[in-house]
């Protein structure tokens, strides 16, 4: 996966046609993947090499490179389609039939791709650095996790035993508070676009948010108390057919949390926004850790149901999958579809009015506002869209793991997703998918492989296990990419054009358009080309 070149716009001759090469590569890597997961071959003389975790990771990486090359190389369309669809829908599930962990890995990669795509909207397109992104993932996961597990009945049981003074009137009050405060918050935000916010208005806003919180608490409490009699019937959570409804609900829940977090914080800029989102992300994790009744605290929730799809199961059985693989295969296909949809939504959004508004805000907030882009609304949409992708994936993650605990949603995960976006190239959809794939492979295959390989070397103590060097890997990715290639591995075409434009012309306006996150847009910003002698006087302290 090293030969990655961005398409050069003004290349003299077109790239050579690589149809044959692509097909050849596909056949070879597929054969390699399938044979390295075949029991008969594994028992043969090559078994020792094939079982080597590093070699295994290499095979999987090479195979996944198929999809990348099908996207990058110039080849006949039928070949590209064949390789892309063939790898994802045929070869990978076939290999996964022999080795379930491969399916698991693929689902993990897709989940992180979707997360990276979501964060890409927030960071890459709208230029808002969100370090608490994983909070939305957690919201999605807990939305399904609480309802589709024994947690639900224990919550209802608790409220059945401690109803307090709650009755139907509480429900009415709660709903009333919810509607009134939410409406007034939205109204106040609208107003602050037109008039400068005063001290009074910000206090009023704070008051309204407390009201909203109270409304939510009252409503949830009332519903729990009123529904307490159903506790016995829901011993293992709600019916798994609700999965499809919750797919929509988790999107909504995450988007709402995105808006709720976004409303107060989006008036902040750059680094302050980063730190406040980091703080809020941690707050959500600490809450998940402490609200024992709802989230079972650090023990986590288990077992969480997955969807029940009989026809799919019989299909999987027909294809020779064993019974315990059905739900993984189902989730694999589901995740594939969801990532496809998310990608489509992304591409359409990028080319739409709102996508251009995001990019305008990223490049220069003041100028965008002057051109009539409503700042708060546009940023909120970015936040909510990004959050909703994370929400739906969180739910699928919960269904796949059948177990969630607050530890799955720490700050470190947020930074991991950020490094995927940075590695692939902010604002570039294929880039962030590549970034997610590379980082997830590193995380789940290559580093553990290295850890296993070095486990028996005496001079490497247990404390230095390379399997746990994720932080170092993320850190190196963030630093080196930012220093050497800020546009990422697979940059956005528009970015490349901008870069090219600046190379050809003396751009004396470069200093003025210091945007929020326009990486590598000009000579001055491209650190690779920065003058070796630091020019002190050019960077205004702003």
């Amino acid at each position, binding site marked *: 996966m090293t030969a990655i070149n961005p398409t050069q716009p003004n290349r003299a001759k077109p790239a050579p046609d690589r149809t044959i090469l692509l097909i050849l590569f596909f056949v070879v890597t597929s054969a390699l993947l399938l044979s390295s997961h075949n029991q008969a071959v594994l028992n043969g003389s090559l078994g020792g090499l094939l079982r080597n975790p590093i070699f295994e990771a290499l095979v999987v990486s090479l195979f996944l490179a198929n999809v990348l090359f099908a996207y990058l190389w110039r080849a006949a369309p039928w070949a590209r389609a064949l390789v892309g669809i063939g790898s994802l829908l045929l070869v990978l599930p076939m290999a996964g039939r022999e080795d379930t962990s491969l399916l698991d890995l693929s689902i993990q990669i897709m989940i992180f791709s979707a997360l990276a795509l979501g964060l890409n909207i927030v960071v890459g397109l709208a230029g808002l650095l969100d370090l608490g992104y994983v909070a939305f993932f957690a919201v999605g996961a807990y939305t399904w996790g609480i309802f589709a597990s024994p947690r639900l009945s224990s919550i209802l049981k608790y409220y059945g035993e401690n109803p307090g003074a709650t009755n139907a009137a509480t429900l009415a009050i709660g709903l009333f508070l919810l509607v009134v405060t939410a409406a007034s918050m939205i109204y106040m935000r609208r107003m602050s676009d037109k008039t400068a916010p005063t001290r009074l208005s910000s206090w009023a806003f704070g008051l309204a948010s407390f009201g909203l919180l109270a409304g939510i608490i009252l409503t949830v409490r009332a519903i729990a108390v009123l529904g307490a009699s159903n506790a016995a019937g829901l011993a293992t959570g709600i019916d798994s057919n609700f999965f499809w409804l919750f797919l929509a609900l988790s999107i909504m829940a995450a988007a709402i949390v995105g808006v709720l977090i976004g409303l107060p914080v989006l008036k902040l800029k750059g680094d302050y926004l980063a730190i406040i989102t980091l703080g809020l992300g941690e707050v959500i994790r600490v809450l998940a850790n*402490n609200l024992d009744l709802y989230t079972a605290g650090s023990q986590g929730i288990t077992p969480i149901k997955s969807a029940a799809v009989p026809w799919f199961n019989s299909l999987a059985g027909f294809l020779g999958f064993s019974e315990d693989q059905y739900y993984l295969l189902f989730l694999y296909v589901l995740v594939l579809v969801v990532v496809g949809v998310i990608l489509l939504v992304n591409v359409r959004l990028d080319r739409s009015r709102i996508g251009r508004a995001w990019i305008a805000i990223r490049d220069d907030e003041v100028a965008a506002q002057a051109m009539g882009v409503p700042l708060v609304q546009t940023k909120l949409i970015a936040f909510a869209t990004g959050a909703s992708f994370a929400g739906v994936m969180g739910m699928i993650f919960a269904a796949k793991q059948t177990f969630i605990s607050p530890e799955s949603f720490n700050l470190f995960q947020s930074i991991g997703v950020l490094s995927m976006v940075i590695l692939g190239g902010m604002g570039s959809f294929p880039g962030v998918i590549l970034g997610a794939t590379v980082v997830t492979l590193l995380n789940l295959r290559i580093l553990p492989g290295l850890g296993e390989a070095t486990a028996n070397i005496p001079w490497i103590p247990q*404390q230095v296990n390379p399997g746990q060097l994720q932080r170092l890997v993320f850190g190196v990715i963030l630093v080196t990419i930012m220093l050497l290639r800020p546009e990422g591995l697979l940059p956005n075409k528009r970015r490349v054009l901008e870069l090219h434009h600046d190379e050809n012309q003396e751009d004396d306006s470069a200093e003025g358009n210091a945007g929020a996150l326009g*990486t590598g847009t000009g000579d001055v910003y491209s650190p690779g080309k920065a003058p070796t002698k*630091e020019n002190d006087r050019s960077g205004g302290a702003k």
Partner: protein
Amino acid sequence: MDLATLLPFLVNVIVGGLVLGFVYAIIALGYTMVYGVLQLINFAHSEVFVTGAVVGFEVFRILAPNPMNGYLKLLIALVSAMLISGGLNVLIERLAYRPLRNAPKLVPLITAIGVSLILQDVLRVIEGFQGRFDLTYTLPDAFGVKFCAAESSCVGVGNFLRTIGVDLQVKDVILIVVALLSLTVLNYVVNRTRLGKAIRAVAQDRVTAGLMGIDSNLMISATFLIGGALGGISGVLYGMKVGTLNAYSGFEPGLVAFTAAVLGGIGSIPGAVLGGLLIGVIQKLVSVMSVLGDLVGSKNLATIDDSYSKMGAFVVLVLILIFKPTGLLGKSNTEKV
């Protein structure tokens, strides 16, 4: 619940909070000074500070069998932590921030996060090769005893504290003294010397400072050196205070200290100290809320346990940034187009 039991309890909480607050204040100074000159949140500062703590641990560990005076050991630990952390901070600036000086604001922020992660694992690996992960300070015995245990051994302030029932260890007193000393020195350097004047000039306007013949790169390096040295001091103090830490434990106090810097008004040195002390007391208050709940007899208070004390700082941060982003002592600056 009567006043006679409640009052000493509250006094102890406030004193304990202040002790913690001094550590936060010194860490916060590292953030605020860098922010003052570069408008950059130095995410790696929490690791610079942990490096200081690790250096302190190593010094105390190596010197543990040595019969020399405990205070001399402390001095050696502080000086070596200052040098190493300060040097590390300068190195980080040179390698990871200076090449990006003219890049958009978020780019150095992202490298700062990256540097912070790299340092965490580098520290872990360095200590890991000696088979350690959790580092427990081996302090001289004299540091662990109660301050002013006997009436005869203390005078003046110590006696007063003893009579009102304040429970302090010797190491807490050392911590406060060292913190106050470094604050005084810092105040002198920043406000009374040519170097401090130059740093303040660079912080105010790098371009004009350059025109006045100030080498702003040098001054930025000096700021990172001072900030790193403060990080080293605070690392040793923090290590003494908490006793056990590891390569990853810088994140939380780092974020709390950053909150303190924002609370006081980021970029303002007195603000960082004020913010640190306030946050220390707030955090201590939240962490003893359950004990207080038992004392007062409130069932709701009693359910707030120690794990919320971390959240207390975050909530403070969020509230300040929403309602008063300039902090208590900060100056507001409007965005220039």
